[in-house]
Structures are given as C-alpha cells and as structure tokens.
C-alpha cells in the first residue's frame, strides 16, 4: 500500500505523480469504519474522486460482488452526472477494472433504461428525479438489493429546497431497501455543516455521519472595481463598467464573468463583444440557452479554448475547470456564501489564491460589495433558516411509493420520518397528506368513489388505477417551470427557451437579444418563437427574467453598518461618499438598528420611503401589509415598489403627520398578514407549484397544449374556491408554509419590525433625498404588486374611456350609477 491506497489505485496515483489528499484518505477511512461521510471541500481538491475512492477500492477487491448496483451517484445536474461518468471512465479503463458505470437521466433511451432495471451496472450516475422514478417500479427492491454506497454531489445546492426534500425521501426509501448502504455527500463551503450532516444522517443525532473537511487553500484575493465612470443611481447591469471589465479580460488568463440574471448576461455579453477589438474568445452561458449550446461552451472552456465566459448561476455548479484565473462578479453577489462558492470556481491550485473582482451595478451595490468583502475577510457566511420538508413533495412521494407496491401507513410514516427534512413531521400532517393522495382529502369524503388509493383486506393501500401510475411518472419532480417557448431561427435551429410571458410583449418586427445575438421576432408558431437575424443596432431589450436572489440577512446587516458609520466610508469611491454626505445633510443616515422613514411630495404624488434593507422578498410582503394599513389610515396609497434595500409607497395623501411607528407596528403580521396572504398573487403562484408537485393538477408537457387543453386548469380558480370552502386543506397549509419560509420571508420581516420598535426616525422632506433617488428610478421598471392591479387597469383604460366618450358623443359608454 502506498499512502494508504490499495492497489491498483496506488499504482494509478503514482503513475500520475499524485499523492492522495488527506481528505481523500479520510473518506477511505470513514468507509472502512462503515460510517457515512460529509466532505466539505473547495473546488479543485479532487472532491469527486474522494467520494468515489471507497467504492473503487471495494469493487477492485477480490471478494467484490461480481454483479449488482454497488454505488449510486446523485447529482442535481444531469450534465454533471454525465461528466462525472466520463471522468470515472478514465481510471476504470486505465486500471483495466471490470466495473460497469452508466448514467440514467431523462435523456437515457428507453431500451437502456429497461436493461438497467434488469441488469443494473456497478455504478449508476443519476438525478433526484430519475431516482424517484426508479423507486416507483415494482422491481425497485431487486434493483437496489446489493447497494452499498449512495453519493450525493453538490448537497449544498439542494439541501434547503424541495429537490432536496424529494431526494431525502428517496434516500429514506433506499435505506429500507438497502439497509447496509452508506451515504456520502459532497458539498462546497457552507455556514452550518452540521445541518448538512443532519440532512444526510440516518440517526437523529447524525452520529453516523463523519465530517471530512478538505484543505481550504490560500485566502482568495477579492477586490471591488474602482470605476472611473459615473456610478449609476439604479439598475443592476453594470454597463458603465464594461470597458474596465474588458481591460481585466485583456490582461490575460481565463475568466468567468458571473452575473445575476439572464437578461444581464445577454447585455454584458453584447457590451463586451462591442469592445472586443482584440478578438478575445468570449462565450455566453445561461439556463435559457439550449442544452447543446451550453455543453459546447463548457467543453470549449474545459479545453482552454476560451478567454472568458459570461455566465449566470448556470455555472455555479458543475465539474472543475483546470485553469480559471479570474472570477469577475458583475452586480452585487447578494450573499457571502454564494460569492465564496463562485470565487472557488477560480481555485485551480490549492496553493495559490483565487482572484476575483466585484463590479457593483449601482451606488447601493457599492455598499453591498464593500459589505461582502468585510464578510469574507471576517469569514462569516450567510446562515439560512432551516425549513421543514414540503408536504406537497411528501404527497408525490407517497403516490410514488404506492406505485411500487401496496403501502402500510404506519411503516411509511416511520420511514418518512427518517428523512432529515421530515424528522419532525406530525402524524396529523402525514395522515392529511396520505388522505389527499387517496381521495383528495376533502371534508365529507366527496370523492370516495374516485379514489386513487384503495384499502386492501390486509390493511395496506394499493394504487387504484393505471392512470394514477401514469400521472405519477409524467409529473415526477419538484421543479415547476413557468411555461416556456422555444426560440427557433426560421425553420431551423433552436437557440433555447424563454418564458412564455416574454413573448407576450413582442410583436412582429420587434428586436431582442438572445443567445448573444440580435434577433427579430417574426411570430409565435405552436410552442416556438420564430425569429430571424435582427438588423442594425436596434434597441435590443432582453425582457425575460432570470432568478434574482434577495440580499442575505447577514449582508443587509453589514450594509446598514457601513451606512450608519461615516468612518467606514473611507474606502468607498468618492461619488458614493458624496452621495452619502448629501444624504446626511438633507435627511438622515439610516441607523444600524433603527429604521429611517422619509416622506415627501414629488409631482402630484406623496411618497413614503422606508430603509429596511431586508431584501426584495421581505419588502414585497411589507409593501402589501403597509399599504393595507395606510389605506385604513386614510392615506390613500396607490402602489408600491420594493428593492433589496428599500420599500417605497406612493399615494394621493401626505403621510407627513401620520403616526409612522403605528404603521410599522409588529401587529401587522397578525390579521393583516392573514388577510393579505389569502389574497396575494404570490400565494397563488406558490399554490400553483404546490398543486403541481402534489399531483392535484397536471404539468403541462410541451406539445400537449392542444390535445390536453381541457385538462390544464387555471390553478387560481382552484385556489379561490378551496380557500373559501376548505381553508385548512392540507395543500393550503403547504402553500402557507412555503410562502412563510421562502417566498415572502415573513420571519425576516418579523425580526426587522421587532428590531426597529421604538427606533423609527421619520423625516418629512421638501424634496426627494439622495438615498431615495434609486428607488424612484425603479418605479415602472420593477413589478408593481397585488391589488394595485385595478389602478394599473384604470391607468390603461381611463384614456380609452375618455376618448370613447368624446368620439361617440353619446352615452353609449357611460356608466350606470346603480
């Protein structure tokens, strides 16, 4: 044995001049002791190999089982599963091992999938969804009978979301089918490793999961770009800084330019190419692009054929690239953990520091970038509140379990509670979800005669119809995409997909930027947007949205800290200092623990701006609650806009003399919250996702729109009816839980309201303050929420009504007063 590695692996390492990393050996040791393990290591440290080493050792031993599935590898990315498979084929071939490794994803041909069930490979690389499907077959016990190891890659990316719930439930079932299988998880650096251990563990105290930490390497070198250009007041794109970003790219090496949204990726890509007089090889990578296109970019990057790639979070995960020299983050990174994970993509050698440059998109983002640097230096990461597993995912899992064979309620409950996110699941919630799966779970048993699960004489429940099995398999998974359309060049190539509502804004002749080029919208045909090359330098506006993350609590706190303390401004650009100085003179600086509220008149509207710094999601909720209160106080609010930093409400009456502390009283989270939540469009969207995941309504599959027209159902209608008639239905409970934990950040809001109590400073101003300018500029650009819909309709309709009244000259369009 050399360095703790047995042959033939030791020889293979030696032939490459490699020495095993300590964490790789630690993973082997954990396996020898029969423990599960969580490996936390930065990119580039042979992390994936560390996960597979124990399995390679076991499978090369003389007493290795000749056949059967030994190791199951699960990745959140289909592409990653494919890459890992390819990377594993090399050592297997070079050592001449008799190990069969295969992938199984949605792309795997039907014949191969059937063969894999009859004769499973030694190692199978798959995704959480494909695992769920495998587990729903009657022959699942046979497939997994020999399983010894499950490897979950990039656990940090799914641990706190519904895909993680689905996988955790799948693992709980696997544990029943293969009690001897160890669990291994690989993760990037996170704030609370113990949370991930609990997620992974079979024992509630997680004592069966060993924590293995890779060497952290050199400290990253991160700078904030000091731009010579004028810093924008608002906007997030960072166009002003592109010449300076281009210079960084020109300086040599390979760079990833990370941005926050897809639209931003398109614009940044265009701007860089406009400047590209040196013929740099710059590519584009984001989630809307066709998979094939993305794979090409990744392959070119891996070969070292690119100088830079402009990317969204689509590149946050994935295989390590050998030679990324620089990471540029355009726009604020929104969280220190995320920044470190992105910077880690440039960590090609553990002994040399990663280099990164932050490019703030506007003045507030300068503060945010400053705050994130402070956080990285202090090594403080963003914690994320733990959330219980989704009841909708549980419903899907129960149906899947029944597809594989009759289920015993008690056994299933016990099994489900062994999944980390469901450890605290109450029997009542379980029973309600079970009943939902069986009959819809409505009061009075209205659908007893249309049951999906039937009680057998032995007390177990069996699936009632073949349709239910088919529906389960068609709808498995927790990712509910907005309906999308493909972007196609004429009758030719598909460039990618955009959300359907993007097309709503287009008429023939409009130009837009997609996949890095200027396109002209021709028409929508079936599920395709037909486009042709756009001409000239037309104003190109990619209006489609990509996921924007809200500012983390931790960073928000740091931003408030910088704002409130002029001593902390020393390193800030001159323009930003001046901006803050004028704010101090004209109004007040927001304090670290308090809340600054400004009111002023501008145009014919009265504005109220509150500097909460709690992130967009929390501000959206606050906006709805605040406007309800202002309405009751007779302040006649008309609408609001929420950014990461502030909430701005406008209306027809001045809040100068209003009781501002009363408006921000904590009790708004009581009745008002209930009332608002029930009526909000955000809750309806959440319900739609819950209803699809739980199997209440079917997913729309591409090309089925016509044939299944009658089957697709407007979930808003269902939501309204269910809320009126059975407000405590389990799916509504699941919806409220989702909204409270994720989308609406109610907890964050509650913490903020409690913190600022008795510390609210109200300034009535003669005119808009410097800090308020950015949010006023966002009005009309950002979405306006909720019940402002009537106002929007009124704005658009009024014109017509007055015009119609004039042109007809009759009372034809007059209003009946009754």
């Amino acid at each position, binding site marked *: 044995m050399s360095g703790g590695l047995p042959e033939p692996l030791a020889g293979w390492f030696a032939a490459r001049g490699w020495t095993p990393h300590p964490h790789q050996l630690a993973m082997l040791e954990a396996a020898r002791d029969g423990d599960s393990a969580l490996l936390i290591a930065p990119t580039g440290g042979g992390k994936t190999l560390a996960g597979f080493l124990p399995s390679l050792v076991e499978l090369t031993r003389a007493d290795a089982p000749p056949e059967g599935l030994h190791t199951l590898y699960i990745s959140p990315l289909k592409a990653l599963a494919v890459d890992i498979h390819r990377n594993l084929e090399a050592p297997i071939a070079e050592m001449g091992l008799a190990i069969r490794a295969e992938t199984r994803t949605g792309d795997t041909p039907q014949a191969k999938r059937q063969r894999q069930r009859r004769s499973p490979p030694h190692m199978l690389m798959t995704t959480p969804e494909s695992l769920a499907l495998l587990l729903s077959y009657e022959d699942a016990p046979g497939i997994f009978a020999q399983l010894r190891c499950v490897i979950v890659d990039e656990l940090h990316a799914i641990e706190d979301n519904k895909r993680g719930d689905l996988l955790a439930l799948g693992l709980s079932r696997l544990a029943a089918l293969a009690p001897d299988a160890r669990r291994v998880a690989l993760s990037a650096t996170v704030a609370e490793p113990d949370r991930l251990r609990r997620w992974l563990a079979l024992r509630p105290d997680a004592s069966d999961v060993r924590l293995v930490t890779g060497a952290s390497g050199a400290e990253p070198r991160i700078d904030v770009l000091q731009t010579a250009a004028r810093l924008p007041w608002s906007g997030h794109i960072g166009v002003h800084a592109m010449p300076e970003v281009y210079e960084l790219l020109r300086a040599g090496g390979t760079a990833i330019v990370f941005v926050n949204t897809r639209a931003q990726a398109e614009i940044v890509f265009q701007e860089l190419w406009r400047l590209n007089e040196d013929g740099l090889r710059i590519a584009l990578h984001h989630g809307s692009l066709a998979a094939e296109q993305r794979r090409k970019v990744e392959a070119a990057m891996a070969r070292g054929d690119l100088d830079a790639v402009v990317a969204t979070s689509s590149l946050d995960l994935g295989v390590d690239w050998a030679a990324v020299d620089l990471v540029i983050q355009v726009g604020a990174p929104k969280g220190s953990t995320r920044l470190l994970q992105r910077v880690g993509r440039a960590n090609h050698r553990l002994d040399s520091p990663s280099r990164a440059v932050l490019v703030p998109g506007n003045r507030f983002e300068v503060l945010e970038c400053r705050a994130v640097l402070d956080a990285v230096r202090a090594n403080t990461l963003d914690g994320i509140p733990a959330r219980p597993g989704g009841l909708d995912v549980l419903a899907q899992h129960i149906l899947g379990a029944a597809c594989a064979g009759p289920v015993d309620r008690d056994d299933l409950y016990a099994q489900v509670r062994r999944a980390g996110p469901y450890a605290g699941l109450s029997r009542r919630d379980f029973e309600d979800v079970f009943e*939902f799966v069986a009959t819809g779970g409505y009061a009075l048993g209205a*659908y007893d005669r*249309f049951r999906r699960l039937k009680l057998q004489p032995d007390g177990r429940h069996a699936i009632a119809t073949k*349709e*239910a099995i088919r529906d389960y398999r068609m709808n498995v998974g927790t990712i509910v995409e907005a309906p999308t359309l493909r972007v196609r060049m004429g009758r030719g190539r598909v460039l990618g997909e955009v959300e*359907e509502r993007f097309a709503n804004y287009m008429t023939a002749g409009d130009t837009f930027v997609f996949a890095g080029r200027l396109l002209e919208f021709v028409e929508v045909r079936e599920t395709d947007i037909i486009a042709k090359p756009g001409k000239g330098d037309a104003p190109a506006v990619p209006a489609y949205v990509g996921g924007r993350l809200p500012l983390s609590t931790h960073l928000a706190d740091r931003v408030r800290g910088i704002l409130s303390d002029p001593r902390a401004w020393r390193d800030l650009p001159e323009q930003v200092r001046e901006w803050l100085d004028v704010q101090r003179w004209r109004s007040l600086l927001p304090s670290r623990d308090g809340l600054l509220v400004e009111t002023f008149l501008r145009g014919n509207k009265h504005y109220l701006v509150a500097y909460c710094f709690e992130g967009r999601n929390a501000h959206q909720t606050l906006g709805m609650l605040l406007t309800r209160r202002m309405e009751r106080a007779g302040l006649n609010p008309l609408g609001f806009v929420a950014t990461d930093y502030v909430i701005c409400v406008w209306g027809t009456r001045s809040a100068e003399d209003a009781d501002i502390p009363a408006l921000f009283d904590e009790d708004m989270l009581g009745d008002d919250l209930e009332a608002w939540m029930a009526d909000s469009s955000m809750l309806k969207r959440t319900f739609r996702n819950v209803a699809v995941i739980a199997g209440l309504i079917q997913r729309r599959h591409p090309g089925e729109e016509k044939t299944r027209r009658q089957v697709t159902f407007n979930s808003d209608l269902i939501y309204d009816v269910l809320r009126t008639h059975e407000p405590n239905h389990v799916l509504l409970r699941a919806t409220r839980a989702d909204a409270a934990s994720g989308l609406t950040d109610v907890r964050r809001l509650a913490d903020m309201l409690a913190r600022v109590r008795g510390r609210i400073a109200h300034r009535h101003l003669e005119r808009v303050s410097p800090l308020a300018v950015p949010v006023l500029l966002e009005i*009309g650009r950002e979405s306006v929420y909720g019940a402002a819909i*009537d*106002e*929007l309709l009124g704005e658009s309709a009024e014109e017509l009504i007055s015009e119609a009244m004039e042109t007809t000259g009759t009372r034809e369009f007059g209003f009946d007063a009754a």
Partner: protein
Amino acid sequence: MPHDAQTPTTVAIRVAGQTIVLDHSGAAWFGETRDLVVADLHFEKGSAFAARGQGLLPPYDTAETLRRLDGLCRRLKPARVICLGDTLHDLAGEDRLSDGDRSRLAALVAAQDWVWVAGNHDPAPPTGLGGAAVERLKIGDVLLHHDVEAGPDAPIPAGEIVGHYHPKALVRTRARKVSGRCFVADGRRLILPAFGAYAGGLNVRDPAIEGLLSADYRAYMIGRRGLFAFRRDQLAADPKRAA
C-alpha cells in the same frame, strides 16, 4: 388597495339599441324587465375531472358558483334569471350534484322565474328543479342563446347575447400584463364571460371570438373591484394560437 371612487362596478352598454348593464360579477342585467343573464355556470366541473381520473380537484365549484349567484339575486332581485347554457359541465353532472347543492339550486329556481337555455355541454336542463327549458329566447330585439348560429340559413338578429366562449382579456399595463374574465361587445353582439367558479377562459383576440365581432369592439374586463373598458389594440393576444 383603494382606487378612484369613480371606478365603475357596472357599465351600461347598448345592444341593438337596448340598454344592458354589465355587472362586475360577470352577469348582464336588463334594467327595464329585471332580467338577469348568466352564462356557462359549468356546475360539477370538478367532479367531472375526478370521475375521469384527471385529478381530485376541490369538489366545491358548484357550491361556490351557487354562492355567487345567490348573492347576485339578493342584490338585484331579478324578476327572471336566464342561464345561458352550459349550466351543467356534463349531462351526468346532475347525478353528481350533492344534496345540499341541489336543494340550494332548487330554492334559487323557485325564488323567481327561471329559464334554462340549452348549451353544448347540457342540451337538457337539470330535471325536477322547475324553470323553463328553451333553445333561445328574445328580450325586445335581442336574441339570447348559448352560441351564435352558423350556416347560410342562420338568422341574423338585430342584436344577440351569447355565452359559450368564456372570453378573457389580456391587457398590457405599465407594470405587467393583467389577465381577467371580460365581456365583449360591438353594439350588435354581446358575449358574456363564464360565471362558473372553475370555468377557464379564451383570449378575446382568438379568432374564434374576434371572428364574431366588428373590429371596433370593446372588452370590459373584470378587475378586482371595477370594470375596465379596452379597445382591440389595447388587448394582447396569447402567444399560442388556439387550437
């Protein structure tokens, strides 16, 4: 959120010279004769899905539709209610009506004159509840029936009111697109929105609807609290062509 006090909840329009009030609830109201017209109630649509194994939707759509209709009758006190077809989602729906819903419906029918107009989903009305069953009827010069009649021999009435199409408008506003049920009218024809709690919608810009109207039609969209009028060029089409 408040809005200007003048935002109307009803709009009076004229069809073939006759004044008809469009109500925010989705019903049409003949003030002089006190006739209340609602279309496409689609009772028991939820249970129809369940019976076909297409999902266990909340079985409260009939109760909800009845609740809305009952509220409307209490408010307007009509002399007669006209259900303009597709009252039942399917003929078997009658058998799936719960006892409670059935007796609530019977009480409503008994409280004023009641007319069931035949629809494509329900060529025959529910039995044993009273009321008159017709294919079509006239109020003044206005013909009321479920759908327009096609073909060379079809009558061309001076004015007509139909249901069937479930019109829905999509409007581009400053912030985003807003979609909602709507009435559509061009002075001769009025198409009512679907009244049923689970009834979906078809974009007004769809040829199936636009083909029935002259180009200067108006859509009266049902907002949260008010009705809003739009011209054709203010309405967006769905990206997908209707089948």
